């Protein structure tokens, strides 16, 4: 690919710039910031788009855009890119076809082949910076993989990585070290050993099984044997158990037999009667004790009886005493009741006496009221109340008429006073008598004077063609002056000096004004002259009108005081004010006169009202007198005191109330008498009783109570006596019974003792106890014997039991038992052990038979073997692969060399004038070595700066040529790399670059002008383009 034309439409500082390039060597020269780097970026952008972090936007705004016109093997092709996004929009014109979008991208990708933006930047377009760091070539994965591997094989993995991968993988599978744990094969080998070890444990299984079967049989036999032994021992132990159980009973029996022989008593002794004997003995003693107690009791009772005394009289009158005693409380009540009633009566009488006189009037007292039998019905109250109301109405009518008369009189007096005041006020008002006439004249004048003056002016103006205002003005102003003078004179007459002076001044001022007015009229007259002819006609009319006004003025003048004529306008105002004041007075006078008329009417009305009231009063008085006489007749008729109706109502209510109280008094007296009768009766009864008792009655209440007490005491005594007598009788009977009882018992006891052939109860007791003890022992003996026999069954066994018991001692028996128990326990232990053993053996047998564990192990073994075989194969492949590669590499490294290094070596030799003859790189390492002319191998760190840069350039050139083998050659863009080259090496370099032109177009950017000369000196053909500020300055 060669670029003919770079069309930068909008990119960085470039704007519409077209650069034509030579298809071969180009030197693009420009100062710093002329746009060289931008141009480089532009070429890359069109080919690859932006890298992620290096967007370059146009300075003038808008989208970046531009194209490259290139030659593709003789075909013209336009590659064009536009847009801000990373890739922008690509369009390509080739073969008359316009490719866009994916189609265009695809075409370009195919054209660029494996060269990515990154590769292009590092290999095809580079500057001094990249050269100075040889590591940019080494570090970049894409580039270095290409660099180291190109020509070795198609892939991109460095050889070192390949061998490492193989080694890593084989190590992950197996390590020959016995201690390695992680590699898979080592793991499986360990499993294998473990499985083998475990399987080894099962090696002897068949023998185990065989001996197991044998042991099972033997153990079975042993168990049978042990069981037999246990059975025999158990039988013996059971018999010993019986003996041991019977032993205490047997001992007891022997003991009892010995005891029984020791007790001396007749077997026939009636020991069973002991209870009877004891009982009788006790009963006899009891009888004796009771008799003693009864006799003592009897004598006590008798003594008590003799001490009792009774009052016969009291007892005989018991009923009467009881009665009086029962009524006594009522008697006491009566006594206090009588006193209370008497107190109430007395208090009531006193209160009534006072009230009767107070409320019923003199002549009345309690006795009179008691005798009075009249009652007053409540109808009377109604009559009285009606009369009362009538009296009230009549009194009101009289009072009302009187009040009306008085009111009429008062009103009349007020009206009179008012009239007097108004008259006085009227007189005080100083009114001009002919004021209406004066006023009328003034009004007329005031209205007509200006009209007339105006008219007169007009007339004069019409009459004369030229202005003669001086003649007009005196006439015009004279009239008011005269009028004002007249008014001044009038006021002067009335001694109103201020107004008079004002009037005079006004007149003088009118004259002054006239002078001023005449000047003004001079101008007016000019106009008048022009219209003169027309106005003349109207003159006549005006004169007529003038005459009419004058007639009226005459009239006014006549009325107004002649001396008051003046011409001053101000005076008119003053006069007008004066007239207005006069007019107020005039109106007030009329108001007063109207009020006086009204007062006269009121007075007449007042007189009428008084007369009507007097007539009403007379009528009312007459009615009252009639009612009064009727009332008095009524009182007499009903025998009532002469009183006003209201008082009669009070009196009646008092009468009725008091009469009720008198009745109450009477009832209380009756009550009191009844109680006193009761008291008397009770007292008489008491006196009679006292007589019968032979006692004096001193105080009824005290005595009755005392008698009652005595009676109670006598009654108690009487009761006690009767009780004691009964008790004495009862005791006497008991004594008799007890004596009988004692006798019977004693006889019975004696009979029993005789029968037992003993003399005393004590003796009987001793013998009876012996007999009972012996009987008890006999019973026990029988019980033990039956117990002992019940331990066994069968006569033979019984005999043997008794015999064995008799022949073995306790200690011997116990020893025998212990021995047997021990033997049994040991036999059982043996049995258990044998059983367990059997179980274990059977378990072992069944385990051996199922063979689970071996099965599992065998399966594991198979699985492990398979894995081992698989891994071993993988490992072998890896190891052999690596072995083969190593062998191949050694041969290759020895016999061949990668193309890049070969080319680089050639160029490096050329540039250094043969100082260095070879560039090398160990195949599995990422570093370079150079071989000097004298066959010394040097590392990159041993080279000078310039030489190192030259080495880097040569490596790039090697790469470029290697790429060119596989795809379209791309233009080289080289940015000022010769700075550190000496002139000789720089010239060598430029020559090499120029030689590349057969394959690659070269764009060499520089800011140094001397390079142009250097090229020319070395006969290197090139095209020079000079850039400045984004523009092509010159191109040759």
């Amino acid at each position, binding site marked *: 690919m060669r670029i003919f034309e770079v069309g930068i439409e909008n990119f960085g500082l470039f704007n519409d710039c077209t650069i034509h390039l030579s298809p071969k060597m180009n030197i693009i020269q420009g100062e710093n910031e002329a746009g060289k780097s931008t141009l480089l970026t532009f070429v890359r952008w069109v080919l690859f788009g932006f890298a992620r972090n290096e967007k370059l936007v146009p300075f003038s705004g808008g989208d970046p855009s531009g194209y490259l016109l290139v030659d593709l093997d003789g075909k013209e092709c336009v590659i064009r890119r536009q847009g801000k996004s990373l890739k922008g929009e690509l369009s390509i014109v080739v073969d008359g076809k316009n490719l866009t979008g994916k189609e265009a991208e695809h075409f370009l990708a195919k054209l660029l082949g494996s060269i990515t933006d990154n590769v292009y930047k590092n290999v095809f377009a580079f500057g001094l910076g990249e050269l100075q760091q040889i590591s940019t070539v080494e570090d970049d994965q894409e580039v270095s993989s290409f660099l180291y591997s190109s020509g*070795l094989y198609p892939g991109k993995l460095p050889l070192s990585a390949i061998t490492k991968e193989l080694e890593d993988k084989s190590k992950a599978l197996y390590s020959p070290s016995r201690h390695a744990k992680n590699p898979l094969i080592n793991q499986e080998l360990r499993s294998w050993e473990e499985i083998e070890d475990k399987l080894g444990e099962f090696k002897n299984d068949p023998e185990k*099984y065989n001996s197991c079967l044998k042991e099972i049989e033997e153990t079975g036999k042993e168990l049978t044997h042990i069981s037999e032994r246990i059975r025999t021992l158990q039988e013996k132990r059971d018999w010993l158990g019986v003996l041991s159980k019977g032993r205490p009973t047997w001992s007891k029996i022997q003991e009892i037999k010995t005891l029984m022989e020791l007790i001396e008593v007749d077997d026939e002794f009636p020991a069973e009667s002991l209870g009877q004997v004891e009982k009788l003995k006790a009963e006899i003693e009891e009888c004796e004790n009771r008799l003693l107690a009864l006799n003592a009791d009897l004598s006590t009772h008798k003594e008590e009886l003799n001490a009792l005394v009774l009052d016969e009289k009291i007892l005989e009158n018991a009923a009467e005493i009881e009665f009086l005693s029962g009524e006594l409380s009522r008697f006491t009540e009566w006594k206090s009741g009588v006193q209370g009633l008497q107190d109430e009566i007395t208090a009531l009488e006193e209160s009534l006496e006072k009230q009767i006189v107070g409320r019923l009037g003199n002549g009345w007292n309690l006795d009179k009221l008691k005798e009075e039998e009249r009652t007053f019905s409540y109808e009377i109250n109604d009559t009285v109340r009606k009369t009362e109301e009538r009296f009230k109405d009549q009194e009101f009518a009289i009072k009302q008429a009187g009040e009306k008369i008085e009111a009429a009189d008062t009103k009349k007096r007020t009206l009179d006073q008012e009239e007097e005041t108004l008259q006085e006020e009227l007189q005080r008002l100083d009114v001009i008598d002919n004021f209406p006439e004066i006023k009328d004249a003034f009004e007329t004048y005031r209205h007509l004077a200006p009209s007339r003056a105006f008219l007169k002016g007009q007339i004069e103006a019409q009459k004369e063609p030229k202005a003669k205002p001086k003649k007009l003005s005196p006439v015009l102003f004279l009239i008011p002056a005269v009028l004002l003078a007249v008014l001044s004179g009038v006021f002067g007459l009335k001694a109103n000096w201020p107004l008079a002076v004002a009037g005079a001044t006004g007149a003088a001022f009118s004259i002054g004004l006239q002078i001023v007015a005449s000047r003004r009229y001079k101008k007016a007259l000019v106009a008048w002259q022009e219209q003169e002819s027309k106005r003349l006609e109207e003159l006549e009319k005006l004169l007529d009108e003038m005459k009419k006004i004058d007639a009226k003025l005459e009239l006014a003048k006549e009325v107004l005081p002649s001396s008051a004529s003046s011409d001053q306008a101000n005076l008119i105002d003053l006069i007008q004010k004066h007239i207005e004041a006069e007019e107020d007075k005039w109106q007030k006078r009329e108001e007063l006169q109207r009020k006086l008329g009204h007062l006269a009417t009121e007075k007449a009305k007042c007189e009428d009202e008084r007369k009507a009231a007097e007539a009403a009063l007379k009528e009312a008085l007459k009615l009252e007198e009639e009612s009064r006489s009727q009332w008095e007749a009524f009182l007499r008729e009903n025998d009532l005191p002469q009183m006003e109706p209201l008082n009669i109502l009070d009196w009646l209510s008092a009468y009725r109330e008091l009469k009720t109280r008198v009745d109450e008094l009477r009832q209380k007296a009756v009550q009191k008498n009844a109680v006193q009768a009761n008291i008397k009766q009770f007292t008489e009864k008491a006196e009679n009783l006292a007589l019968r008792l032979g006692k004096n009655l001193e105080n009824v209440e005290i005595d009755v109570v005392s008698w009652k007490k005595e009676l109670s005491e006598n009654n108690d005594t009487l009761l006690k006596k009767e009780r004691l007598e009964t008790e004495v009788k009862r005791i006497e009977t008991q004594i008799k019974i007890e004596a009988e009882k004692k006798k019977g018992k004693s006889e019975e006891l004696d009979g029993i003792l005789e029968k037992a052939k003993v003399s005393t109860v004590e003796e009987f007791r001793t013998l009876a106890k012996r007999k009972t003890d012996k009987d008890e022992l006999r019973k026990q003996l029988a019980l033990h014997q039956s117990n002992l026999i019940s331990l066994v069954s069968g006569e033979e066994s019984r005999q043997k039991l008794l015999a064995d018991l008799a022949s073995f001692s306790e200690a011997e028996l116990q020893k025998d038992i212990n021995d047997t128990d021990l033997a049994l326990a040991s036999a059982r232990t043996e049995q258990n052990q044998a059983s367990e053993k059997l179980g274990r053996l059977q378990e072992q047998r069944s385990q051996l038979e199922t063979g689970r564990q071996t099965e599992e192990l065998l*399966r594991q073994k198979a*699985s492990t073997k*398979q894995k081992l075989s698989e891994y*071993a194969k993988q490992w072998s492949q*890896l190891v052999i692969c690596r072995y*083969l590669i190593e062998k*191949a590499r050694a041969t290759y490294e020895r016999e061949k060399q990668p193309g890049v290094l070969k080319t680089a070596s050639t160029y490096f030799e050329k540039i250094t004038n043969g100082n260095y003859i070879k560039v090398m790189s160990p195949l599995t390492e990422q570093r370079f070595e150079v071989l000097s002319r004298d066959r010394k191998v040097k590392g990159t760190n041993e080279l000078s700066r310039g030489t190192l840069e030259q080495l880097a350039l040569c490596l790039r050139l090697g790469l470029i040529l290697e790429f060119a083998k596989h795809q379209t050659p791309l233009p080289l863009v080289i940015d000022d790399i010769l700075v550190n080259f000496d002139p000789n090496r720089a010239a060598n370099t430029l020559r090499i670059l120029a030689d590349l032109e057969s394959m690659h177009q070269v764009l060499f950017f520089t800011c140094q002008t001397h390079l142009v000369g250097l090229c020319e000196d070395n006969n290197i053909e090139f095209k020079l383009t000079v850039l400045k500020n984004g523009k092509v300055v010159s191109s040759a």
Partner: protein
Amino acid sequence: MFRFIHAADLHLGNSGPSTSGFSKQWADLIYKATTTAFSNLIDKAIELNVDFVILAGDVLDTANPNLNSQLDLFAGLNKLSRAGIQVFMAGGNHDPLDLKKAQTTLPEGVHLFGERAETIPFVKGGVTLAEITGISFPVAKVSDDLSRQLVPGTKGFQIAVLHSNVKGAGKKENYAPSKLEYLTQSGFDYWALGHVHTRAVLSEKPHVVYPGTTQGTHVNETGEKGCYLVEVENDSVSLQFIPTSAYTWEKLELEAPKTLNELTELLEGLDELASGAKKVYRLKLTGMTPLYETLITDLKDLEERFKEGKHYVLESVELDILPDVDLEEVKLEESLPGEFLREAERLMALGVSSELKEQLAPLYDRLGGILDDLDEEEVKSIINGSIALGIELFWRGESR
């Protein structure tokens, strides 16, 4: 007329291939296969009402004791004994006489030949119809030609029972080697041999017969396995193969598929391929394929996915494939891969070479007792694998 069953190499107790990853059903079937085969044999003997059964060695699998297989053996022998069928057994290299037995006494009618040759008559209806002469391995390793010790009897049909490797009969280890010429001239009518697992009739009249194993337990023991039913009438001897295996091995060696679809279809078709029989497959893919990387990476997944079907299990998948690169052309290049291929070719040509063994010694020295020594086929497979690996690495990242 009489008839008998001739079987050998039962290898009771051989657990077969690894069953990890299989369903329990398949795992048990494989693990118990030898026992099942023996059981089938006994059933068949009883069903056919044969006169006797000859077991010519390697009845048990290994010198390692496996009690269960012994118990299985005794159970089977007991069954035959109860059915009135005699058994003549000779011990082979896997079950020599020094083998520890679980039971010392053999069931009635079961005869185990001792370490010295002996002849036992077979009498039917009072007539000695045949005489059976045999000998057992006294120890596992016998290098003597034991056939020389067997001498035919005088009455009836003469049968020899021996566990022996007849020269040229198989590539098994050379135990008790014997020569066919000798056998055919020995005077016996029927050599009932054991040891070689592939059935073979080496000679007729006199008959020299390997019945093969009753159950294949290894990928190399492919196809139907069983025993022979031998009928003897007058002088005529007829052989009939009776299958006994619980399952059979199949090796599938196929051209590596070019697409994933093709591969999936292939694997999906395995069940149909097995068609009713129980099969254990080993699949081997060979040749160049564009699927090289996919297969290498996804092999385990694929194996897992198609591990078993109704009628088959996949024992393993072996890859002998190469990336899709024209190796012949590369081989001519003056490039590193060219050099590499040329080296590989050279090594391949050497076969099981000391050069190769030297490289692999660090591992194979340790695997000695576990895996068999490498054979030509395995070496070829390893070198092919190495080539594939190398090519893949040399081409990795190349845009094709």
